[in-house]
């Protein structure tokens, strides 16, 4: 049991953070929820009314420009492709680094750099590199690989691809670091035992390594999915607010545009809630699965 003094001390420790979070997280969240049931926009910023679920119905049924379902599908593709590449590259590089190797620390340090650079600089730099005439990517394609130049930023598909390439580049170090941490905690006896049993490298990978790093990777992947789904900087800045003609949006950038370029505040609020619910459901699903896997080992 705690004494009165202990209780006062806990209050002193925790309450400041919760007041701050309450003021700037919980209050805005509730305000956002209320807003999503209203009809606020730039011309109706003070005399807006509650109109029920109209915003949600509108999003799901009325055709928008660009099309909501197309954006949603694109967001799913964006998230899946990015996270798959992050994890595969990250684990692959971690496996390479997790052996006796000269210059290991140097490789590791250099490979983390994409994670360390501020995202907006990453985005603006890659935007420059994707430039049609003098961007480095097209220079390499045409001069060194004898391939035709690609019009990266002028057509929807290529621009979307450009965003994905940028984001893959920026995201693999996180997974690499997490996987490396997990690999280092696997006891070497397991590999010795596997060697005695005459296991091939493939068997060691699939029967020892991967199952053992799974409990660490699943929370990291969950986090990765949330971050990628919600990642606004890259799409917004690489495509310069959704060029060409708002055809490159994923959900979060579309919401940002709805809020701060079109000032459809209530529509944006409803979309935000929609994104949040999807991510919450996804995380609960993953957390349940990771608990199941932890119990299995």
């Amino acid at each position: 049991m705690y004494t009165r003094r202990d209780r006062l001390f806990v209050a002193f420790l925790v309450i400041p953070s919760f007041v701050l979070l309450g003021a700037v997280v919980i209050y805005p969240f509730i305000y956002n929820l209320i807003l999503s049931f209203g009809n606020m926009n730039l011309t109706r910023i003070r005399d807006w009314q509650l109109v029920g679920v109209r915003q949600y119905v509108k999003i799901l049924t009325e055709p928008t420009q660009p099309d909501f379902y197309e954006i949603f599908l694109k967001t799913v593709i964006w998230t899946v492709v990015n996270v798959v590449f992050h994890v595969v590259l990250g684990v692959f590089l971690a496996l390479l680094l997790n052996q006796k190797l000269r210059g290991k620390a140097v490789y590791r340090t250099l490979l983390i750099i994409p994670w360390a650079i501020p995202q907006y600089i990453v985005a603006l730099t890659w935007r420059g590199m994707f430039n049609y005439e003098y961007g480095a990517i097209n220079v390499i394609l045409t001069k060194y690989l004898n391939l035709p130049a690609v019009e990266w930023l002028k057509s929807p598909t290529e621009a979307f691809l450009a965003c994905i390439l940028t984001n893959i580049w920026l995201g693999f170090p996180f997974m690499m670091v997490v996987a490396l941490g997990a690999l280092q905690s696997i006891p070497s006896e397991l590999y010795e035992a596997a060697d005695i049993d005459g296991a091939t490298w493939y068997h060691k990978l699939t029967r020892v390594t991967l199952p053992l790093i799974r409990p660490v990777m699943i929370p990291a992947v969950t986090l990765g999915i949330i971050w990628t789904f919600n990642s606004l900087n890259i799409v917004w800045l690489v495509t310069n607010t959704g060029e060409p003609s708002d055809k490159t949006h994923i959900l979060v950038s579309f919401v940002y545009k709805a809020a701060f370029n079109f000032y459809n505040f209530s529509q944006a609020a409803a979309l935000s809630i929609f994104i949040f619910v999807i991510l919450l459901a996804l995380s609960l699903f993953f957390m349940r699965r990771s608990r199941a896997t932890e119990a299995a080992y």
Partner: protein
Amino acid sequence: MGRVLTHIALMFFVLIALFPVWQVVNISLRPGDQLLSTKLEFIPDGATVQNYVRLFTEKDFLRWMANSALVSFVVTITGVVFASMAGYGFSRFRFAGRTIGLLSLLTTQMFPATMLLLPMYIMLIKLGLINSYLGVVIVYSATALPFCIWTMKGYYDTIPVSLEEAARIDGCTPFSAFYRVILPLAAPALVITALFSFMAAWSEYLVASQILQDTNLWTLPLGLKSFESSMSTEWGLYGAGSLIVMIPVVVLFLALTRWLVSGLTLGSVKG
């Protein structure tokens, strides 16, 4: 043979990881008449530091830097103080609302940026606080705080409770046991917390672009973006500015990698 292949593969990825950085360096050193060159030389012809000089003499770069430093400093202090206290509370005490508190901290990670930004933006318009640092400082602190509290909690969990018990027997108050015994031991986690709070403020563009519209208040990201958005992109200035902005962050980040690894894995496994 396998070893050689490993080195080749790693070098290939290092090359990819460093290529954009090299691009930034390269562009920043180009003289004005070669900004649109399509040559890929390691160091450009007639390399010059002219862009760096222009940054400080012709542009408000110093002012942006001072603004960014101010905002980042306040956010870092807020983050470290609040997270070190709250993390300790969550780690050592069982109290009503503890589990809900911890889970709601996790939930905030699923908020899309607009979910907090939009209500805050509308509030700030109504309060007439657009173009004030208070707005950005609050948003940045709030975004960084949940992660920092988790990191601190995870680290305190690894410090044995017997240390405080001993201190208490020696006559320490709960606060001095925390402040004099535990807090110094948690220095690595404090450093990570400071780094993350600092980066949240130093590298943020989208929130700042909505709240800070007065060019006198611009932080570095807004300044750098302005080189790119004007009719003709000033690539030289952009490159020079970017490099100055990213060097301290990259160096700090790399220096702290080791702690980052343990901090991240602890947080995710021990929950």
